């Protein structure tokens, strides 16, 4: 239960006590709001008194008569607008001239309640104002959170982009100053590591492109029938050279060729990421496998490997951006830390789920469930 503070400024005591009586027993509720709203009414008989009270109490809603003994209602409105106070104002007035209506609207009044009003008229007006105030605050809060998340993302990103540059710079300096010897062979490790860091940086940039694609490009016209078996064999072809190099055997088991409605590019991102992970975090001579199965309503895709596995602790943060599990077994594997966060974003976009089960040194299984026809993609 949340309480909204209402300030009523009117020189007629009857109006003030009427408003208090009606609103003190009123509550507003909507299915999309977390809680009910109730109201606490304060009264002022003049604009000057009203300003004193609003400076002290900072009400959420103000009901304002225009014709007041001292300063007028529109003056109070202007006072609020100049200070950017977050107060929703409705004018209560018996005869609103066009001139005053225009000025009041310009200064931020959002509603006019004609006097005399019935309790029902007041209630429905307050109901609208409450809804508007609620939405305004939620929007503001979401914007703030969005900014914060973007800022965090960018600061981590710049760290991830700078680390390989620092490494390259260090190695090049080492060579420039011939610190390890005069022969090119003296620099075999720095050269090898530099190439690896460049590859890592390239992967990071590719992943970033994937990430922007997902965020920007989900368009209805791209949604089409996608054969999961087809995407899977494409992904396996892509990863094959790497799998041969790693001596990992990659298998595809299509129990039923499921067709889903999706943007094929999105589904390819999921398959490419998970199958290349299954190879990358494997052991020499290991196995990786994609299983595709389905029920009437959903597709089930399982990526399993006999790789290095993930400890229970580490699986918790696995899908967060830039999270890489650092240990003895992963130290020579390059990765951007974005792959799984991208996969999760895509899966959630299609109202699906992703689950991971893993045993260190035995292997990891990712299970994805996707509805065959996503209801609504936004």
């Amino acid at each position, binding site marked *: 239960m949340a309480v909204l503070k209402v300030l009523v400024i009117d020189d007629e005591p009857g109006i003030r006590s009427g408003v208090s009586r009606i609103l003190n027993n009123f509550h507003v509720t909507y299915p999309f709001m977390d809680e009910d709203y109730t109201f606490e009414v304060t009264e002022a008989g003049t604009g000057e008194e009203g300003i004193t009270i609003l400076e002290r109490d900072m009400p959420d809603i103000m009901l304002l008569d225009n014709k007041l003994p001292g300063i007028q209602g529109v003056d109070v409105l202007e006072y609020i607008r100049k200070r950017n106070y977050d107060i929703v104002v409705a004018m209560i007035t018996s005869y609103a001239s066009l001139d005053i209506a225009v000025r009041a609207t310009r200064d931020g009044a959002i509603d006019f309640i004609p006097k005399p009003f019935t309790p029902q008229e007041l209630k429905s007006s307050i109901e609208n104002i409450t809804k508007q105030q609620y939405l305004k605050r939620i929007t503001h809060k979401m914007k703030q959170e969005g900014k914060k998340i973007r800022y965090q993302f960018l*600061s981590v990103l*710049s*760290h991830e982009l*700078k*680390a390989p540059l*620092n490494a390259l710079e260090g190695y090049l*300096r080492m060579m420039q100053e011939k*610190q390890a010897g005069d022969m090119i062979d003296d620099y075999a490790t720095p050269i090898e*590591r530099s190439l690896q860091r460049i590859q890592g940086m390239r992967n990071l940039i590719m992943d970033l492109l994937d990430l922007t694609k997902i965020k920007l490009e989900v368009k209805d016209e791209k949604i089409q029938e996608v054969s999961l078996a087809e995407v899977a064999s494409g992904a396996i072809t892509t990863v094959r050279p790497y799998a041969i190099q790693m001596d990992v055997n990659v298998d595809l088991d299509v129990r039923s060729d499921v067709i889903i409605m999706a943007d094929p590019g999105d589904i390819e991102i999921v398959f490419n990421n998970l199958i290349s992970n299954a190879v990358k975090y494997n052991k020499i001579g290991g196995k990786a496998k994609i299983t595709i199965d389905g029920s009437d309503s959903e597709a089930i895709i399982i990526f399993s490997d006999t790789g290095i596995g993930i400890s229970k602790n580490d699986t918790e943060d696995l899908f967060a951006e830039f999270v890489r599990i*650092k240990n003895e077994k992963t130290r020579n594997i390059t990765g951007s830390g974005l792959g799984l966060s991208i996969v999760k974003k895509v899966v959630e976009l299609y109202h699906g789920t992703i689950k991971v089960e893993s045993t260190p040194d035995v292997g990891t299984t990712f299970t994805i469930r996707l509805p065959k026809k996503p209801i609504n993609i936004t």
Partner: protein
Amino acid sequence: MKKSDYTILIADDDPDYLFQTVFNLERAGYKTMAVESQAEAEAVIAKFKPSLAIFDLMMESDDSGFILCYKIKRKYPEVPVILATAVSHETGLSFSIDSEQEKSWIRADRYLEKGIRAEQLDQEIMKLLKL
């Protein structure tokens, strides 16, 4: 004492930064001990007292370096510590350990930006070891 009588502990989760720092310090004449995580660094500190330590700020957690500074200073208050990181550029956070107040919570003796040249790092170390 000669430089080779000093062992420097370096903790950093970037294997290349670690490799380069070890390389530079050994070339300058120091003995080194390199670890790749806060956990490993803690294990080393438990058994061994280095002559000086260089810690990266962000390893397993965002404040690994601070935690290591605190732990090593509690066990060996006289061991000089350098915090090395690139963090201030990205986050806009800036630390310096000039004032007494900052010294009281950042328990490091020097705060250095990553990417400083080998000679500069050697200079700072010599100052801290009073060489």
